[in-house]
C-alpha cells in the first residue's frame, strides 16, 4: 500500500517461488558440495586413487560453474525479486537483519574466493594447503547458511522478537535449529546427487566407485529428512500445523509430492547407486534430479504456506500490509493510506480493480493461478462487499480486508463483476444447489469435512427463517444476499441434499 504494485498479470509470489526454488536447489548443493569435494579429495589421497582425484578435479570445475555463477546470481535475484514484489517486508527484513546480511556477505566473499582458488589451483597448491582451502570454502558456505537460516525462519516464527525487537531473539527463533539441521542434511544429499551427475562423465570402473560414494551421501541425506521434518513440524506455530489437517488441497498435494519424490529418490539411489552401481545411468540421474527438485520445491512451498496469512508472522501480512497499520487503514480508507490508488465515486469497479491489485494480487490472479473468477462466480456486489468482512474466517490463510466501507463496496463490486452468473435450475433443488455453491460453499460443505452443514430433514420453512438471520446466529456469517426465491430453493436443497 505504501508502494506501487508491479502488475505482472499473475501473483508476484509465483515469481519469488520460481527464482527462490532454483536458487535454493543450487545453493544447498553449494554448501554440501564443499564437504563432498574436500572429503572426496582426502579419500583419494588416502587411497592413493589418482582416478578419483581426477574425478574431483573435474567435479570442482562443474561445481564452480554451477554454484558461483547460477547459484550466486540467483541469490541476488531473490533480493531483487522480493524487493519488487514485497517491498514493505523486504525493507523490514533489511532493517532487522542488515548486520546478519553483512556477516553473510563476509562469508559469501570468502566462499567465492575459496571456491575459485580451490577449483583453479590444483596444480599450484600443495595437497595440504589445497585441502585447507577446500575446508575454508565449506565452513564459509555453511556459515552463510547458518546466517540466512536465521532470517528465513524468523519470517515464519519470529518468537520473542515480536515483544523485544531484539536481533538475537528474531534470529534464534523457535524453528531455527530444526530448519538448520534439515537444510544441512539436504545440502549433503544434494552434494551426492550432483556427485552422481558428474560421475556419469567418468568411465568404468571409476564411475562405479564414484556412484557408490556419492550414493551414500544421497541416501543419508534423504533418510535423515523424515525425523528432522517431524521435529520441524512440532515447532511450527499451532495455526500453521492446522493447515496440515487435510482441508487445503495445495498442502495435501505438496506433502504427497514431497513424500513420493523422497521415496523414489531413496529407492533409486539404494538400487542404482549402492546395490547395482554399474546400472546407474544418466536417465536415473535425471529422475533423481527431478525428484530432488520436487522435495526441495515442495518443502519450500509448504514453509511459505505455513506463514499465511503473513509474510512476517504477526507483523506484516502476505499482501505487504503491516498488521500495526490495519486499524488506521480500516478507519481512514485506502485512498487516504496509499498514494498509488485514485478513489473514484463514478466508477467503483475501476477503483475496486485498483484495490484488488493492491490487496489481493500478491496471491491471486483474475483468471490464472488462484483465480478469483473461480471463487466469485455468481456473486452480487453486496455479497462481495459482505464477504470481505470475513476473509480470515473464509480462509485462515487470508489477511483481513484493509479498507473502509467505501473500499469494501468498490472491491466487492469489482469481484462480483469478474464472473457474473444467475443461478438457475430445472428444479428448485437444483437451483438451491447452485445458490449454495455461490453463497455458502466458500466456507461450508454438505456431507464434507469443511464446516459441514447438516440440516437434512429440517423443515424448509425453518431453514428459510435461519437464512434470514444468519448474522444473529453467528456474527462471522455474512447476511444472505440472494432473492427470496433463491433463499427458498437453498432451504429445499439443504433440507434434502441427497441426489
Amino acid at each position, binding site marked *: 500500500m505504501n508502494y*506501487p504494485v508491479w502488475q*505482472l498479470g499473475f501473483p508476484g509470489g509465483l515469481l519469488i517461488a520460481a527464482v527462490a526454488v532454483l536458487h535454493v536447489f543450487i545453493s544447498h548443493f553449494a554448501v554440501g558440495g564443499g564437504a563432498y569435494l574436500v572429503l572426496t579429495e582426502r579419500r583419494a589421497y588416502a587411497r592413493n586413487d589418482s582416478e578419483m582425484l581426477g574425478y574431483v578435479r573435474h567435479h570442482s570445475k562443474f561445481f564452480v560453474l554451477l554454484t*558461483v555463477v547460477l547459484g*550466486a546470481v540467483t541469490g541476488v535475484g531473490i533480493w531483487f525479486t522480493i524487493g*519488487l514484489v514485497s517491498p514493505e517486508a523486504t525493507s523490514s527484513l*533489511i532493517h*532487522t537483519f542488515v*548486520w546478519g546480511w553483512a556477516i553473510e556477505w563476509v562469508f559469501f566473499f570468502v566462499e567465492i574466493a575459496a571456491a575459485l582458488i580451490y577449483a583453479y589451483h590444483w596444480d*599450484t597448491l600443495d595437497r595440504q594447503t589445497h585441502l585447507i582451502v577446500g575446508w575454508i570454502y565449506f565452513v564459509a558456505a555453511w556459515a552463510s547458511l547458518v546466517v540466512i537460516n536465521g532470517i528465513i525462519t524468523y519470517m515464519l516464527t519470529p518468537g520473542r522478537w515480536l515483544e523485544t525487537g531484539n536481533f538475537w531473539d528474531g534470529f534464534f527463533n523457535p524453528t531455527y535449529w530444526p530448519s538448520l539441521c534439515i537444510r544441512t542434511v539436504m545440502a549433503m544429499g544434494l552434494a551426492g546427487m550432483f556427485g552422481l551427475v558428474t560421475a556419469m562423465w567418468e568411465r568404468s570402473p571409476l564411475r562405479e566407485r564414484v556412484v557408490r560414494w556419492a550414493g551414500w551421501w544421497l541416501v543419508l541425506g534423504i533418510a535423515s529428512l523424515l525425523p528432522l521434518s517431524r521435529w520441524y513440524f512440532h515447532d511450527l506455530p499451532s495455526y500453521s500445523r492446522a493447515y496440515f489437517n487435510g482441508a487445503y488441497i495445495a498442502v495435501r498435494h505438496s506433502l504427497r509430492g514431497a513424500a513420493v519424490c523422497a521415496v523414489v529418490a531413496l529407492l533409486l539411489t539404494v538400487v542404482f547407486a549402492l546395490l547395482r552401481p554399474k546400472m546407474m545411468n544418466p536417465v536415473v540421474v535425471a529422475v533423481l534430479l527431478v525428484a530432488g527438485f520436487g522435495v526441495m520445491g515442495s518443502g519450500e512451498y509448504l514453509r511459505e504456506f505455513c506463514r499465511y496469512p503473513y509474510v512476517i508472522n504477526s507483523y506484516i501480512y502476505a499482501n505487504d500490509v503491516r498488521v500495526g497499520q490495519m486499524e488506521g487503514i480500516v478507519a481512514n480508507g485506502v485512498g487516504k493510506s496509499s*498514494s498509488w490508488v485514485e478513489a473514484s465515486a463514478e466508477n467503483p469497479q475501476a477503483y475496486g480493480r485498483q484495490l484488488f491489485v493492491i490487496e489481493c494480487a500478491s496471491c491471486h490472479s483474475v483468471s490464472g493461478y488462484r483465480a478469483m473468477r473461480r471463487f466469485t462466480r455468481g456473486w452480487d456486489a453486496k455479497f462481495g462487499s459482505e464477504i470481505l468482512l470475513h476473509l480470515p474466517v473464509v480462509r485462515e490463510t487470508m489477511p483481513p480486508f484493509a479498507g473502509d466501507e467505501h473500499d469494501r463496496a468498490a472491491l466487492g463490486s469489482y469481484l462480483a463483476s469478474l464472473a457474473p452468473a444467475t443461478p438457475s435450475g430445472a428444479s428448485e433443488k437444483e437451483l438451491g444447489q447452485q445458490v449454495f455453491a455461490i453463497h455458502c460453499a466458500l466456507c461450508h460443505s454438505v456431507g464434507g469435512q469443511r464446516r459441514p452443514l447438516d440440516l437434512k430433514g429440517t423443515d424448509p420453512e425453518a431453514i428459510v427463517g435461519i437464512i434470514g438471520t444468519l448474522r444473529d446466529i453467528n456474527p462471522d456469517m455474512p447476511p444472505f444476499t440472494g432473492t427470496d426465491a433463491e433463499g427458498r430453493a437453498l432451504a429445499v436443497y439443504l433440507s434434502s441434499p441427497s441426489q
Partner: protein
Amino acid sequence: MNLPIPYPDPMPLPAPVWLLRTLLLLTFFLHVLFMNCLLGGTAVALVCTMRRKSSAFSARLAGDIGRLLPSVFAFTITLGVAPLLFLQVMYGHLLYASSILIGVPWLAIIGMVILAYYGSYFFSLKGHEPNGKTTVVLALVVLLLASIAFVYSNNFTLMLAPERWLDLYHSNASGWNLNWLEPSLLPRYLHFVLGALAVSGLGLLVMGLRQREDGYRQWLIAQGSSLFTGTTLLNFGVGFWFLVKLPGPVRLAFVGGNGLATALLGVGMLLPLAAVAHLIMAKAHKSPTRQLAIGISCGLLTVAAMVIMRDVLRNLALAPRFSPNQLPVAPQWSIIVLFVLLFVAGLATLYYMLRKVAIATMMQVAAAQKLQ
C-alpha cells in the same frame, strides 16, 4: 504537489548513518573498481580479438584478460551486494518504488548477469585462441554489461525523481519503463561508461608493470596510457554535459553553492589531470615506474572522489524531501562488533589463501626457469 514518496521503514536504522555511509561508499568504491575493469576489460578484449590477426600482442592480451574475467566478474558481483545492502537500509523506500516502476528491466539484470557471466567463462576457456565465435560471444558480453549499466543508471536516477513516478505508474504498471525523461540520464551513463574504460586503462598499466617480457610490457603500458588519457579527456566534455543537465539547485551546489560539492568537483577534475600528466611524463622517462605509479594512484583517487561526489549528488537531489539523517537510529552494537570481527577474520583468511597461491605460483615459476 503531493508526491507519492513511500514512508521510510518505521524501524530505526540499525547503525549510525556515518557508519552505514562509510561502508556504502567503501564497498561501492571497491565494486566500481572491479565493475570498471569488467566492463572496460571486456571492451578492450573485444577490440583485441578483432585485431588479433594484425597484432600478436592484441591476441595475447585478449587471452590474458580472458583468464582474469571470471574472477573479476565474481568479485564485481560479490562487492556489489554489500553497497546494495547498505543503500537499502538508508534509501530503500525510494529504491523499491523506482525499481518496481522499471520492474522488467530491473529484474532482467539478473538474467543478463547470468548470460554475461557464462559468456565470460566461455571466453576465458577459448580466449587464448580467439576466433569468430569468441568474438561474437564477447561482443554479446560487452552488450549485456553495457545494458546492465544502463538499467542501473535508470534506476539510480529514477529513485531521485519521485515527481515522475505516478506518470510512469499510470502509463505502464507492468514495469516496462525506463527513466527516459531524465535529462541527465545519457550524460550520466556515458560519463560512467567512459570512466570504466579509463579505469580498465589503469588495469592495463598494472598488467604492464607486472609483466617481465619487455616488448609486451611496453605495449601494455602504451595501450593503457592511451586508453586512460583518451577516455579521461573525453570525459571532461561528457562530465560538463552531465553537470549542465543536472537539476538547477543541484548544479548550482556543485559550482559554488555548496562547499563540499564544489571542492569535490574541483578535486575530481584536478586528480584525473594529474593522472594524465604523469602518464604523459612517463613516456619520456627511461624508467617510468614511479610516474606510472603516481598516475595510477591519481586515477584511483579520481574514482574515490567520483564515488563520494555521486553520493553528495544523491543527497543534494533528495535534500528538500529526505535525508537519512532524519531517521531514528538504534544501533545493534553487539552484532556490529561481531560483523567487524568476522570481517577482519574474513580479510585474514583471504590474505592467507592469496599469499599461499602467490608463494606457490612464484615457486612454480622459479622451478620452470631452473629447468630452462
